């Protein structure tokens, strides 16, 4: 087991400009860290740099106490599970799992013990004689994880391991990853584009965008205190609503915003770097955007209603927001397509972002959410 530290790490290809820069990250021993971001944000590249499959152009990578920049992948004390599982089709499952140990020169009895142990952890003991083609996707994934476990690595690296599985199996395997981490207590770094996987698995989430780290924090921190509009919009499903307005008044713990084509909205944040008259956007999650016919601050027209059983999402176009507003309502409420509706928001449910997309610190204690 080991910690992983990245210091001012950057990546460039040839003489081209840097595609990743200023990557600073501390991963504690035994932590489950998830790299998440849209495709092309650099999350897989960062993982591959830690693995040693991509060169590090600048900065330092430390695994435990040792600088690993120039150490070959097999000597970094890592094991990696790939998106396509990367099982060798010409070898049996046993040989696939034993391959790395054979190369490391382990004795036959040591190899056998390690393979049988990993197979029993993953419940694939009865499949060891088969070739990968005879297995389902979930079983292949287990073998790939088993191959990683036999190496007894200090750090596990997972590159989008669930993205080739169907939805039901994904949920099942997600739980297995959680269990595996509880059993092994080894440092794990997991890459995904799926924010639900990130929220459910991680001790710590690293949100990346365009080669930069946007925010690092626990799932709850990212959900309730996103540092900027990008993180606010990326974490949470359906995504956060953004409502445009201008600052009308500022006092100690609240900011009053004049919503474009709407009413006045109080927001519980500590203002920093904004003054009355500045353009801002209010962020509110769908569960907190409430239908209100008495004193609405926003008016909208319903375009779609999605019933999900115990609740529904309504999508409503509004002159106050660029994108349709999304509101989660109880299923008992009947709302027709095309009907005019009004919304209100409680001040402590609001986020506030300046014109550059930076968030103001929220002033409400977390318990109120």
């Amino acid at each position, binding site marked *: 087991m080991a910690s992983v530290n990245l210091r001012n790490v950057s990546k460039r290809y040839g003489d081209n400009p840097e595609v990743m820069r200023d990557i600073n990250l501390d991963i504690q021993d035994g932590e489950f860290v998830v790299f998440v971001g849209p495709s092309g944000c650099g999350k897989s590249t960062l993982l591959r740099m830690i693995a040693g*499959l991509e060169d590090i152009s600048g900065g330092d990578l430390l695994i435990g106490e040792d600088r690993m920049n120039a150490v070959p*992948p097999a000597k970094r004390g890592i094991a990696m599970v790939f998106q396509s599982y990367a099982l060798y089709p010409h070898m049996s499952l046993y040989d696939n799992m034993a391959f790395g140990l054979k190369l490391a020169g382990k004795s036959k009895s040591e190899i056998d013990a390690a393979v049988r142990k990993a197979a029993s952890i993953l419940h694939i003991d009865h499949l060891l004689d088969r070739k990968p083609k005879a297995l389902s996707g979930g079983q292949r994934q287990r073998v790939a994880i088993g191959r990683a476990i036999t190496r007894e690595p200090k750090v596990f690296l997972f590159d989008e391991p669930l993205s080739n599985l169907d939805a039901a199996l994904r949920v099942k395997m997600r739980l297995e990853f959680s269990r595996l981490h509880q059993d092994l207590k080894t440092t794990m770094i997991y890459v995904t584009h799926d924010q639900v996987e990130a929220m459910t698995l991680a001790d710590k989430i690293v949100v990346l965008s365009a080669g930069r780290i946007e925010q690092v924090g626990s799932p709850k921190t990212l959900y309730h205190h996103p540092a900027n509009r990008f993180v606010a919009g990326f974490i949470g499903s359906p995504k956060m609503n953004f409502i445009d307005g201008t600052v009308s008044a500022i006092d100690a713990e609240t900011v009053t915003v004049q919503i474009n084509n709407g009413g006045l909205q109080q927001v519980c944040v500590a203002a920093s770097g904004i003054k009355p008259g500045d353009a801002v956007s209010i962020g509110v999650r769908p569960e907190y955007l409430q239908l209100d016919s008495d004193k609405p601050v926003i008016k909208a027209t319903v375009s779609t209603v999605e019933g999900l059983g115990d609740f529904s999402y309504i999508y409503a176009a509004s002159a106050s927001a660029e994108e349709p507003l999304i509101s989660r309502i109880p299923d008992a409420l009947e709302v027709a397509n095309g009907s005019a509706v009004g919304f209100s928001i409680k001040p402590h449910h609001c986020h506030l972002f300046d014109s550059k997309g930076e968030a103001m610190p929220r002033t409400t204690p977390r318990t109120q959410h």
Partner: protein
Amino acid sequence: MTDWMNDPAWTALGLSLRVAGCATLLNLLLGVGVGLLLARGRFPGRNLLDTLLTLPMVMPPTVLGYYLLTLLGRRGPLGGWLQEQFGINLIFTWQGAVIAAALVAFPLVYKPARAAFEAVDGQLEQAGRVLGISEIGIFFRITLPLAWRGILAGLLLAFARALGEFGATLMVAGSIPGKTQTLSVAIYEAVQAGQDDSANRLVLVTSLVCMLVLLLAGKLAPGRVAER
């Protein structure tokens, strides 16, 4: 019986098999090497190189033969140098026939080899690196075993093509019975000389050998790789 055994057809067949075998061996090394280079390498002029390497497939063999004659002849740039430095002459030798056959059949090895290498999932090689295999080990223990069937199918086709080579071989190696006269050249000579019996036997032997090779190639066709 002894007459039958001493038939010059067997000499021609033996020579043809030797020429085609050597040409295929040469193409195994060159075709697989170049196929790997173009499947994995990223360098300027890659597409142009691919076009040049595929050219022997569409150019008339006589044109290729002419190029070889110009290049390898005593006054040619390569032939002259070989003659001066090592006293080697390739024109009108069976080794010259090997080079002609290898050139004509080259794209049949190079193209499938490149496709087979491109079809190997890069993550399998990366997983090998993480597991601690050397780059040479990765090639021989992962990449080559996975691409092997595609390469083998190409080699068999190339062998059949080399066996039937006529135009370029005739121009470079000529038609010296027992020395450079391969099956297809011998058939041409027999027909020209009105020796129908001899021609018939040669044609039959050639047809059988070609069918055998194609049957084998069919069994190893790349389409079956996915079924493994």
